[in-house]
């Protein structure tokens, strides 16, 4: 009798079903809860024209040359204590082969208040560098040629002020604004959604964002005016699909606001940039990055009619997931970060920050910061992963997962639209509740050991050796307070008062505020003084507390 050849897939299916399966109770869905099949085959490949790097919809990357053309920028987020201390750290990182700067500001700076404000006590220099006025910014970039380096600044409500300080420092170095390259986070919508460092209500906040985009399109054309961020949304507890959907929805809200201002899409869209998290679920993250490019390109072309192909290309920075790191057995964080960084690279990131192993305890020490940078260098130069463009393109699994994340994002876009757009959805606490629900669900999965964190809910050790951490000298608080008070005493007060009065008048009207902020900064008005001037006109926002 002739044996009929059986389909290999059917054979596998039978064999799989009859083979023993693990019954440890551990979830087999992604960390975001997407159910996974045990095996993906050619049947799972979507039917579509072949996608290529550098070609619409850019799923496989925005450059035809991938990392063959240029490696990603190794950009370690860094800042602590005073401008002087942080300046030393920057020079140390640059000497060790870092290729771009990224400024972390302390809480008072992020919240637009001076170091001598009563609510700044205890916060100065703790989670970033304290910047009160142009004088501090001059110290921060002392001896660093701003015409040759690119700098990213993580700041949102007071973003316009810090950008003006950067422009003013460059002026003093003889570098024109038109030569400056870098990125301003400037993404206020995700502050309302997740990170909560808002100050003004949404509307005037959006005005400031659009003012800076409009101003930079003319005066600082090489600057990435906004870094539309999913990182904070994810760290606050969202799933990968929520991170992607909420971030891209924010992006479209900025595009809408700029168009409403009268700008043409191709005049600003190429300077919009993005910032994502690289979490620990390896393939899900790669799929997320690929889906992000495809969705953005499609929406920009089809909804906004962008013609310039630079407007269609989603460029992004990645940071490995701080929230995935553990205070327990912190050396494990080196391994976690390396895996997350690999996902970012396989996902085609343009720049990358790798967290230091001790960042779950404090800001990183010199040694931990260098190790984190070395992890990127190892990926770039030892592993060979940069040699092939989008090496996972065509993977049955990764392609199917890319499509699934895209599908989930589209469902969210519809829901946000039904709520009337991003700002009404914020006011209805939609995002906040979605994120809190996901965070709580994940925490329960950990408690029930349906997901494991090595060293936390399994594989624990009893006595851990304490790790040496960076301490911020409490003395610096008084020194920084004295510094800002000295600036107020020694500046040309008449020029400063005049500049702030002009800013206030402009804020009451509809003029672009950037030139007025720049003049205030040049006159050594402090960050707090500029913010308070704007608060008098715009008011402040209070969030409805929901749990």
């Amino acid at each position, binding site marked *: 009798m002739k044996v009929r050849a059986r389909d290999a897939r059917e054979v596998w299916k039978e064999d799989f079903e009859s083979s023993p399966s693990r019954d440890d109770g551990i979830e087999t869905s992604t960390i975001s809860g997407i159910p996974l099949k045990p095996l993906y085959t050619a049947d799972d490949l979507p039917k579509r024209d072949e996608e290529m790097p550098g070609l619409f919809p850019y799923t496989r990357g925005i450059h035809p040359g991938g990392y063959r053309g240029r490696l990603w920028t190794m950009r370690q987020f860094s800042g602590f204590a005073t401008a002087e201390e942080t300046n030393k750290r920057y020079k140390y990182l640059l000497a060790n082969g870092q290729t771009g700067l990224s400024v972390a500001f302390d*809480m*008072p700076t*992020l*919240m637009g*208040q001076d170091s001598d404000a009563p*609510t*700044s*006590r*205890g*916060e100065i220099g*703790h*989670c970033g560098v304290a910047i009160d006025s142009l004088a501090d910014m001059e110290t921060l970039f002392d001896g660093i040629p701003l015409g040759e380096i690119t700098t990213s600044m993580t700041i949102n409500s007071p973003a316009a002020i810090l950008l003006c300080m950067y422009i003013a420092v460059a002026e003093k170095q003889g570098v024109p604004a038109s030569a400056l390259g870098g990125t301003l986070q400037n993404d206020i919508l995700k*502050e309302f959604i997740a*990170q*909560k*460092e*808002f100050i003004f209500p949404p509307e005037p906040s959006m005005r400031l964002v659009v003012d800076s985009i409009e101003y930079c399109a003319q005066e600082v054309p090489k600057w990435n005016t906004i870094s539309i961020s999913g990182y904070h949304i994810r*760290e*606050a*507890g969202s799933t990968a699909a929520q991170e992607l959907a909420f971030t891209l929805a924010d992006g479209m809200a900025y595009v809408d606001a700029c168009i409403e201002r009268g700008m043409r899409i191709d005049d600003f869209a190429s300077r919009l940039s993005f910032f994502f998290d690289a979490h620990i679920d390896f393939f899900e993250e790669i799929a997320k990055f690929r889906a992000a490019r495809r969705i953005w390109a499609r929406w920009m072309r089809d909804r906004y009619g962008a013609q310039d192909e630079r407007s269609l290309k989603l460029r992004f920075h990645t940071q490995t997931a701080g*929230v995935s790191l*553990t*205070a*327990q057995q912190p050396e494990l964080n080196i391994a976690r970060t390396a895996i997350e960084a690999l996902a970012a690279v396989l996902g085609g990131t343009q720049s990358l920050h790798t967290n230091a192993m001790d960042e*779950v*305890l*404090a800001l990183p020490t010199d040694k931990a910061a260098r190790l984190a940078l070395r992890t990127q260098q190892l990926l770039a130069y030892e592993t060979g992963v940069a040699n092939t463009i989008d090496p996972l393109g065509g993977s049955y699994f990764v392609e199917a997962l890319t499509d699934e994340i895209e599908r989930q994002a589209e469902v969210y876009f519809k829901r946000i639209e039904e709520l009337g757009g991003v700002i009404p959805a914020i006011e209805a606490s939609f995002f906040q509740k979605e*994120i*809190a629900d996901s*965070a*709580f669900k994940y*925490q329960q999965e950990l*408690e029930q050991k349906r997901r494991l*964190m090595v060293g*936390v*809910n399994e594989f624990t050790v009893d006595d851990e050796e*304490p790790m040496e*951490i960076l301490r*911020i000298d*409490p003395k610096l608080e008084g020194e920084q307070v004295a510094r800002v008070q000295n600036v107020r005493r020694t500046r040309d007060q008449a020029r400063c008062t005049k500049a702030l009065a002009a800013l206030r008048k402009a804020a009451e009207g509809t003029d672009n505020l950037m030139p007025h902020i720049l003049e205030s900064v040049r006159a050594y008005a402090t960050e707090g003084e500029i913010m308070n001037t704007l608060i008098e006109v715009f008011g402040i926002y*209070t*969030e*409805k*507390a929901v*749990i």
Partner: protein
Amino acid sequence: MPVDTAVRPVRILVAKVGLDGHDRGVKVVARALRDAGFEVIYTGLRQTPEMVVDAALQEDAQVIGLSIHSGAHMTLFPAVVQELKRRKATDIVVFGGGIIPEDDIVALKKKGVAELFTPGTPLQEIVDWLRKRFPQGGN
């Protein structure tokens, strides 16, 4: 006079002190405490020590749970304890959570913070600690 013998739930005010807006931890803990049968009041963000104590007195809370992520715990946690002393409300128990180094935990306990929970703490541990601290519930 009839005596109400029912166990009243413990009232807990959870608060975010300081300037940072990282509210993932506080929200997860607040939900877990609520699910465990405590009465939970959440203040929202950016509360000063004075605001926290005001709210605790107004809400008749027996416990204040503080959350912080910015590194200002050494200033703000003791400030809450001090404010309770000033307002003669030292019967209110203060506990906290956040990224707090071991040395700081020792120092904060000396300054009157009853307990501190750091990243990776199971929610059940916080619930158990509160139940042990209040065996009579909120009575």
